[in-house]
C-alpha cells in the first residue's frame, strides 16, 4: 500500500520554481530518504505533504486518500527550523501540541510519560522550555511529533544538535517506530544515517527529481564498475591499463573505476599476468555520498 503519492506536483513562488513536476510513490512501512542540496525544494515538498502549502499543480495523496485537514492528524512533522514556546512548561507544551492533533489529555499524559522516559528526559517536564539545553529541546520536539502515534512521520534533519549518544537513541526509536508500522520520511544531509536507515531514497535537485528508488538497487547500479585492489609488488603499470578510468590510491589499497564495457575479469587477468601477487580484488559499492555528489553535480552542469 502507498503511504504518500505525489503525482506531478509543482509549486512556484512568483518567478521562483520550488518544485516542478515531481512524482513519487512512497510505500507504507518503510523509511524513505528525501535528499538534495540546500534549496533544492525538499522543504517545499514536505510542506505540501503535510498540507502547510498546496501545490499549484498536481495532487498529493496520503494513504491513497485526498489530503484533508483531518488527515493531518495521521501525520507527524518535525521541521528543520523548529522551536518551542520559550515560556511554557514542557508538559503543557506537549499537551498543547498533542491537543492540536486531537489527542485527549488523558491519552496524551500516558504518551508523554512513556516517551519522556524512553528518551530519558522525564525529569524536565515541569521546567520552562528556555531552561532546557538545545539537545533536550530537540528531544522534546521529537516527542511532540509522535504523541499522536502518527502513521506517517516526517523528520527534517532530526539529528542536528544531538550528541552521538542521543543520536543513537533516536535511531533506535526511529527503527522501533518503523517496526510498529509507521512510514517515515527522513530528510538529512548526513548520508551515513541515510545508508543506515533508509530503504528507499529520492534525490531532488533544482526543484526536480534526479534519482529515486530502492537504495540497494541504486547502489548496485552505481557499483558495478568500481574495484578495490591490493597487490604485493609494483602496481604502477595499472595507470596505463586500457581498462582503467579513475585511480585513487589509499594507504593499503587502490580504488579504480573500469572503463565502460570492460569486465572486471579482464582487469583481473591483466593484473595476474603482470606477475604481481593479488591480496584483494573486490567489487565495491560506491557510498551514497558519492552517488549524491555525482548525481547532483551532473544535473548542475
Amino acid at each position, binding site marked *: 500500500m502507498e503511504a504518500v503519492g505525489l503525482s506531478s506536483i509543482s509549486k512556484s513562488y512568483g518567478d521562483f520554481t520550488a518544485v516542478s513536476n515531481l512524482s513519487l510513490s512512497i510505500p507504507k512501512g518503510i523509511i524513505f530518504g528525501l535528499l538534495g542540496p540546500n534549496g533544492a525544494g525538499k522543504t517545499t515538498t514536505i510542506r505540501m505533504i503535510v498540507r502547510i502549502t498546496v501545490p499549484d499543480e498536481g495532487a498529493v495523496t496520503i494513504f491513497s486518500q485526498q489530503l484533508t485537514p483531518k488527515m493531518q492528524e495521521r501525520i507527524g512533522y518535525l521541521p528543520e527550523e523548529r522551536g518551542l*514556546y520559550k515560556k511554557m512548561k514542557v508538559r503543557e507544551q506537549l499537551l*498543547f501540541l498533542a491537543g*492540536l492533533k486531537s489527542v485527549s489529555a488523558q491519552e496524551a499524559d500516558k504518551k508523554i510519560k512513556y516517551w519522556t522516559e524512553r528518551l530519558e528526559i522525564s525529569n524536565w517536564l515541569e521546567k520552562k522550555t528556555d531552561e532546557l539545553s538545545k539537545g533536550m529541546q530537540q528531544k522534546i520536539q521529537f516527542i511532540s511529533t509522535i504523541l499522536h502515534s502518527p502513521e506517517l512521520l516526517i523528520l527534517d534533519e532530526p539529528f542536528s544538535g544531538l550528541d552521538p549518544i542521543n543520536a543513537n537513541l533516536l535511531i533506535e526509536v526511529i527503527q522501533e517506530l518503523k517496526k510498529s508500522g509507521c512510514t517515515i520520511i527522513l530528510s538529512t544531509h548526513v548520508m551515513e544515517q541515510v545508508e543506515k536507515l533508509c530503504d528507499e531514497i529520492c534525490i531532488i535537485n533544482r526543484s526536480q527529481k534526479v534519482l529515486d528508488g530502492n537504495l540497494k538497487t541504486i547502489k548496485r547500479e552505481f557499483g558495478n564498475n568500481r574495484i578495490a585492489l591490493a597487490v604485493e609488488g609494483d602496481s604502477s603499470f595499472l595507470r596505463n591499463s586500457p581498462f582503467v578510468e579513475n585511480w585513487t590510491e589509499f594507504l593499503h589499497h587502490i580504488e579504480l573505476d573500469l572503463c565502460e564495457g570492460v569486465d572486471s575479469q579482464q582487469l583481473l587477468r591483466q593484473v595476474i599476468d603482470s606477475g604481481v601477487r593479488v591480496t584483494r580484488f573486490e567489487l565495491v559499492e560506491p557510498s551514497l555520498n558519492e552517488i549524491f555528489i555525482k548525481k547532483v553535480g551532473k544535473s548542475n552542469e
Partner: protein
Amino acid sequence: MSKLSLVVKREYLERVRSKWFLIGTILGPLIMSSFVLVPVLVEKLSSPNVSIAVVDASGDPELITKIEERIKSEKTRGKYQIEHKSARTEEELEELKSVLKGQVEERKIQGYLVITPSVVTKGVAEYYSKNVTDFSTNRYLEDVITRTVVEKRFNQTGLDPKRVEELSKRIKLTTKKLSEDGSKEDKGQSFLLAISLMMIIYMMTLIYGITVLRGVIEEKQNRIVEVIVSSISPTELMLGKVLGIGLVGITQFLVWSLFIFAIPSLAGSMLVGVASAIPDVSISLMIYFVIYFVLGYFLYATLYAMAGSIVSNDQDANQVQTPITFLIVIPMLLIQVVLRDPNSTASTILSLIPFFTPLLMFLRINIETPAFWQIGLSILLMMASIFACAWIAGKIYRVGILMYGKRPSIPELLKWLRYT
C-alpha cells in the same frame, strides 16, 4: 476541545499568568485612582498650619482686624495662623521687614503680608515668602483682602455691602443632559466618563493590538509556527491568537471596572465628594462601549497580526506597525472636530470611517446621540471592514509566517495574495 479553543486557551493563559499582566492590571487602576485620590490626600495632609505675619502699615486697624478675622475664621478651618505686627513709620516698617525676613529664613513663619494705605486707593498689597508658588495660599490671601477692601469701599461710598452682595449675586447655570429617560442634572461627569471610556478603547486597542503583533513575531522567531500549521490552518491560528489576546483585554477591563466601582465606595466615607463624581453608568453606554471596543479590537488586531507575519525581527516590526498605529492615533486628533459640532457633516463622515468609528462614533453617541441609522451603519461598515481585513490578513499571514529574511515589498505582498 476544538483546536481553535486550544489556541485561544493557550494564548489567554500564557498572558494572564504572566507577571506583566498582574502588574498592569493592578497598577493600572492604582495609577488611575491616584489621579483622583492623591491631590485630595495631599491637600489634607500637607502643611496643616501655615503661619503668616500680617504687618499693619495702613494706619487702619479696623481694616486689618477684619482681614485677620476673615483669614482665621473662614472655611480654612484653622489652616492659617496669624501673627499681628504693626509699623507706624517707614523706618519701623523696614526694621520689621528685616526681622520677619529672618523668621521666614528660620521657617518660623511661611511669609508676611504687608498692607499699606494704598491697598484701598490703588488696590495693592504685598506678600513676601520664600515660596511664591503656593498658589492656593496666594489666591486665598488675595481673595480675602479683596473682599475686605471692597466692603470698605462700599461703606465709604455709603452703600450697604450686604445689599450690594444680594443685588450682584452671580447666576448659577445648571447643565442638564437630555436623554430618553428624561433630563438629569449633569455637571460634566458623564462627559468625563465617556472620554475615559473612549481613552480605554484607545489604549486597549493599541496595547493589545501590539501584543498580537509581538505574539505573531515570537511564534515566527522561535519557529514553532511551522509545527502548529502542520496541525491547524494558519487562519485558525491567527483567529485563535486574536481571540485569546482579546479575552485577556476583556479580563483586564473587568478587573479594572471592579476597582473603579469598588474604590470610591470604599474610600467614599473617607473622601466625601469623590464618590459623587462617579456618574450613573447607563446600560446603553456600556453596551456601546463593548460593541465598539470589540469591533475596534478585531479590526486592528487582524491588521497587527498581518503586520507581524510579514516581518522576522523587531526592527522591521516597528516599521510595519507604524502605519497601523497612525490609524489608531488619528481619531484622537479629531476629537476636537467632533466636540465642536458632533452632528456636522465632517463629524458624521469621520465617525463612519471604520478605522475611526470605535473612538469617534462612541464619542458622538455620548455627546449627542446621532440618528440610529448612523450607529447601525457604522457597525455594519466596521463588520464589513473586519471581514475584508481578516480575509486579506489571513492570506498574507498564511504566506508570511513561513517566510524569513528580508521584509517583502508591497508588490511582493500583492503577489502573496494570489498564492494558493
